[in-house]
């Protein structure tokens, strides 16, 4: 019994060491972003000697970008973009994922191969044709235009299909015997069980929407309809960038994502509390 305890303790320490090691590696660019934001312009590009910590901490970059950019408007555009993309993606992908994962019907395999096929194409080829569609219906410079390519998601459909396929068959059979039709058993029995995959899809959709750069730049050229990523990109000049300001703006831009994450994380933890799990 005693040896078991020590084994557990050693195991725990090893786990923390591994996690801390990876945490540091993962955090480097984030910390770098913050450090650069507090540097002067020349220190930011200094290479010899290589400057890690700013010699003088200056928040000038922060105050400059805050006054130059309308962050509240950018937050609003970004949050609307994320909100509609997440709603659309989770809704359509849950329905389609369930159908592909749990039902048998004619044409299913062909349709699913189309979904996979879409994922195989580099996204760059979609930009111009989709821009022309939005432009033809006169919807450029709107939130709709921002959301447009993310109304459906092949990735999410595949993700939720996988989640539904992993659920036990017995659940659905029981529901069917109780007289549920397919829609009812989907809505009340099956979909609640894939909540963590939906949350994962939500996170992905939000992060991709947040980082999506080329599309918003092309489709919403008006400054007051841009999301954060596009507004940040315009800060980079053709020949040079003011790195402290760029990084300060990026740091300010992270705020809504961190807030969203904290909200999502709660969902995550709850999921664990019910199913649990240990090594």
């Amino acid at each position, binding site marked *: 019994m005693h040896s078991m305890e020590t084994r557990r303790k050693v195991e725990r320490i090893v786990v923390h060491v591994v996690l801390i090691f990876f945490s540091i590696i993962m955090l480097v660019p984030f910390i770098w972003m913050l450090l650069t934001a507090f540097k*002067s*312009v*020349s220190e930011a*590009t*200094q*290479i*010899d000697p290589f400057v890690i910590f700013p010699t003088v901490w200056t928040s000038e970059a922060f105050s400059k970008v805050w006054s130059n950019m309308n962050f509240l408007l950018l937050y609003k555009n970004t949050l*609307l*973009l994320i*909100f*509609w993309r997440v*709603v*659309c993606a989770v*809704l*359509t992908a849950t329905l389609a994922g369930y159908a592909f994962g749990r039902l048998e019907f004619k044409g299913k395999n062909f349709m699913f191969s189309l979904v996979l096929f879409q994922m195989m194409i580099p996204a760059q080829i979609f*930009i*111009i044709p989709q*821009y*022309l569609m939005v*432009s*033809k219906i006169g*919807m*450029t*410079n*709107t*939130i*709709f*235009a921002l*959301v*447009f390519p993310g*109304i*459906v998601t092949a990735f999410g459909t595949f993700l939720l299909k996988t989640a539904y396929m992993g659920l036990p068959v017995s659940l659905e059979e029981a529901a069917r015997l109780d007289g549920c039709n397919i829609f009812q058993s989907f809505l009340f029995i099956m979909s609640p069980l894939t909540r963590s995959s939906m949350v994962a899809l939500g996170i992905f959709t939000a992060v991709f929407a947040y980082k999506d750069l*080329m599309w918003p*730049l*092309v489709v919403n*050229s*008006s*400054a*007051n*309809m841009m999301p954060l990523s596009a507004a940040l*990109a*315009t*800060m*980079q*000049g*053709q*020949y*040079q960038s*003011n790195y402290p300001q760029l990084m300060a703006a990026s740091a300010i831009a992270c705020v809504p994502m961190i807030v969203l994450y904290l909200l999502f994380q709660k969902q995550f933890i709850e999921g664990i509390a019910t199913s649990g799990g240990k090594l």
Partner: protein
Amino acid sequence: MKKRLISALMVSAMCLSLTACGGSGGDSSDGGSSGGSSSGALRVAIWDNNQQPGIQEICDLFTEETGIEVQVEVKEWDSYWTLLEAGASGGDMPDVFWMHANNSQIYMNNDMLLKLDDYIDKSDKIDMSKYLPQVTALYTYDDSYYAIPKDYDTIALWYNKTMFDEAQMEYPNENWTWDDMYEAAKKLTDKDAKKYGYAMNVTNDQDSYWNMIYSKGGYVLSEDHKTSGYDDAKTLEAMEFVGKLLTDVCPPASVMAETQTDILFESGTVAMITQGSWMVPAFKQNEYTAEHCDVAMLPYDKETGIRATICNGLGWAAAASTKRPDDCWKLIEWLGSEEMQFKQAELGVTMSAYEGTSDAWAGNTDLFDLTGHLAMAEESTVEGVENLIVEYPFTYNAVKWTSQCQKDLVPAWDDPSQMEDKCKEFAKTMNDIIASESK
């Protein structure tokens, strides 16, 4: 079964409209604010964030004068061209925008730009002879004008005063020849201490070795824009000099590729670089260069007596498809007018293309003596030396061969003894590319 089918169709139609609503719902909450501003205002697109405040100020004055609203949109370089191309391919283009020599030929050839001839004839503000002819030429096609020159740029020699002081050497000046520059760079190079006299990456064509080629009597592109000059004897001589610089006074090629040359300069590891006047805002903004650096004219060649700078410039163009060509012209006329060209120079936005505006630009900062850049495009004051202003070498699709050149010469940068072979090889490639350009 039939009933089923119909109801299935109906429900699916509902589903579709539901997804559509999802999107448009977001739009309707915001449509008001965007619709109002874009319908009445002329859309102006530019790519340089540094110039935005100045351009905005000039456009605001235009609105005051004419009552026409203007909305200036800044894009980042890559997406600027993606957007413009997408717009030209069938979407909507911005009304008024910047043109660049690399792309102007394609746009003019395909009738994407508003032809300005009639407007210019009628205008009392625009006289094309007042602009730097090298820039005007970039936007002239079949003897028609498609853009009004906005600015021009020249290349000059930027140097680190502190490094020269420490070595107790004389600063670069207008009497320097390329050999003087080489000797100075050699003295300033200490490879063990990672200090170098000069830096020039293979991508620094316009701002470094092209100027040396023309100074030494060679050429990059023939005057009829049809054949490569990379196999010309004089060009090869110039490229041999480039190889000498690379071997003796420059950081290793991989270092210059990993760290751009301007960053090496801004970090005080390189004593001299040749750079374009477009870098002035960046060097002003950087505390290190602001304190330690200054600029002089490019050296000339002892044998030819030529001091050469490539000269490029942007133009203000309008979309051929614009719904308000007259308003567009009014704005372009305003931006190209003598008064506003002065204003642009004064604000330090860029050097203006209009003649006689240079002093206004030189006065925009007292950190550097900018006459080095300006004198490159003026009559020579040094006896026996001719100042040559070289029109930016363009063909129908110049991006393709310039980019190919930057790639094909990489081995020569790595090992300068291959310089001659690689240049000759590239000349052939370049001729093929030009021959295959669709026109």
